[in-house]
């Protein structure tokens, strides 16, 4: 049996309590192998972002377990979760998620600064920026570049710590179609070149073409039978 980089087991998420409680996720289970490119799809309000927050350890499930790189994350405390996110996960959000008071280069190096492993960080960051064609923008402040450029910076920032999984929530949701295409192409080529695991939330399934796995969510549940696994 192959090693799984991610195992989601019986995850429930309930927001609020009593009469106003919302069951955002119900009994979610699936596994992801290293190097897979996985999509989470579903209509608005179905629970995609909620699920991504659970995987990204930004929020805790009400019940169930998320295991990343063989570590059951439910046992980690707040500080351990922070360290874990820093070393094992990369994030790309829909809206501008760069720190606008830092330059492009400083943003890319930021996960390294948190980690305190600054040796050769600047070189690695600029190499990564070169691969996404942004070496000329390195010293600009993050709020002085375009949305498409910002998303590419966010991608390089997500990669700088060589995480187990890169998570992206509607990474193209805010971009024009050309920038969106560039971004998707970039994600998929990085997936292949670096054997980097990606989990991407989208409401535009066709944009991504051929991928390894698709999880479809409806009303907080995985829709059985629509679990695509082209490699199986």
């Amino acid at each position, binding site marked *: 049996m192959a090693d799984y980089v991610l195992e989601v087991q019986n995850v429930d998420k309930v927001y609020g309590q009593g009469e106003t409680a919302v069951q955002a996720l119900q009994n979610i289970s699936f596994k992801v192998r290293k190097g897979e490119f996985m999509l989470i799809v579903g209509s608005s309000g179905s629970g995609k972002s909620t699920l991504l927050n659970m995987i990204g350890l930004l*929020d805790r499930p009400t019940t169930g377990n998320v295991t990343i790189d063989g570590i059951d994350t439910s046992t980690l405390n707040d500080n351990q979760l*922070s360290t874990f996110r*820093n070393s094992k996960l990369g994030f790309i959000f829909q809206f501008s998620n*760069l720190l606008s008071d*830092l330059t492009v280069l400083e943003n890319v190096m930021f996960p390294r600064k948190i980690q305190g492993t600054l040796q050769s960080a600047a070189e690695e960051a600029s190499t990564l920026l070169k691969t996404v064609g942004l070496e000329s923008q390195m010293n600009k402040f993050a709020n002085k570049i375009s949305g498409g450029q910002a998303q590419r910076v966010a991608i390089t920032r997500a990669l700088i710590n060589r995480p187990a999984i890169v998570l992206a929530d509607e990474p193209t949701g805010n971009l024009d179609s050309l920038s969106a295409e560039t971004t998707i192409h970039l994600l998929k080529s990085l997936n292949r070149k670096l054997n980097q695991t990606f989990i991407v939330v989208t409401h535009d399934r066709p944009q991504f073409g051929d991928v390894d796995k698709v999880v479809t969510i409806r009303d907080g549940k995985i829709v059985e039978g629509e679990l695509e696994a082209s490699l199986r």
Partner: protein
Amino acid sequence: MDYRAQLGIRFITRRKGSLIAASLAVAIAILVVQVNSVIFQGLYDAIVRDLINYRFGHVFISRQEDFITKSSFVLVNWLERIPYVEAAAPRIDYSAQINSTVNGQLIKDYAVPVIGVDPVLDRKASTMYQTVGDGQYVSFRNSIVLGAIADRDLGYPKVGDTVKLKFKDQHGNDVLKRFTVVGITKTAGSVGLDNSVIINIDTLREIIDRPQQTQSIIVKLSDPTKDEQVKDFFLSSFPSNADKFKAQTIEEAAELTLSGFRSGIALINLVGYFGMMSSAFAVVTIQMMQVTSKTRDIGVMRALGSKRKDVLLVFIFQGMVIGAIGAGLGTVLGVVYTVYAKETHLTFQGSLALEVKYNWTSIVQTDILAFVLAVIASIYPAYKATKLEPVEAMRVG
């Protein structure tokens, strides 16, 4: 640089409005404290200065409830042999009924303090003689110098006019004596001797039938910090039990005048510190706004792996920037005002000129206090920031 320090500095320095508002609040509080100190400490020091110059010297020697019978000539000579002593002079404080005739009309009797001075020694131990605006200081036996207030109360007799004083000598007999006005003193503020008249001490001794006697000796020091030593040396040589001598430093001699003023200063300082408290509240408000406007950034930091304490440090560093810039600005403004007050010999409506000193200890203390308050004021907003969850990074909008 530490990334938390870097973020804290960038957060606040790239928001000019917040930075200016917060550091001005700190700076103004410091300025208020410094201006208060220049004015009120300056007034206090000016009063001490004038009390030394006009009334007490640095060390004031008298005798418990009696006149000094030991020759003032001997005492002054003895004192002037002490290295720190610049000069010493005998004085007698007395009182008399005074009247004057202006344009042939009699102004009625008036009770006035009379000060007997040695015309030669007093010029060395006191600057009283410099306050004579019109005429000259006491010299010959029946010369008199009128204080400006005494002069006014007498209907403005001029230099050359004659005034008559009625004394009671030590046996209770009335003694009448005529004097010629040689000068009129005018000092700023209330510390001078403007309500008194000054005559030759030997004349006064004669009138009250106390030949060779003295009431007090004022001692001027070349090094004012040695006042306790001079006082102790004097008392050990002329024991207070045998000779009943009393020696006091200026602080002791003028205790009554100064203690009230000191509590006034303490109150004014309290007002200054309340100003500092309100500037701290301004910092709290501005920092809360900063935290609110940086909610998403804090979420991103947390998502990328910053711990709660890292978020705390970012806003504490921000408070340190506010405190440092505010303290720097406040010090510059305060020192500029202090220099201005010192160079222009600042006075208020003809009152005495402030004795302005550069009190670096107090300036540094105020700065440190303001800086620490700005940091303390940042703790609550910073703590609030740590309560934000990493999912804030994902929030739409």
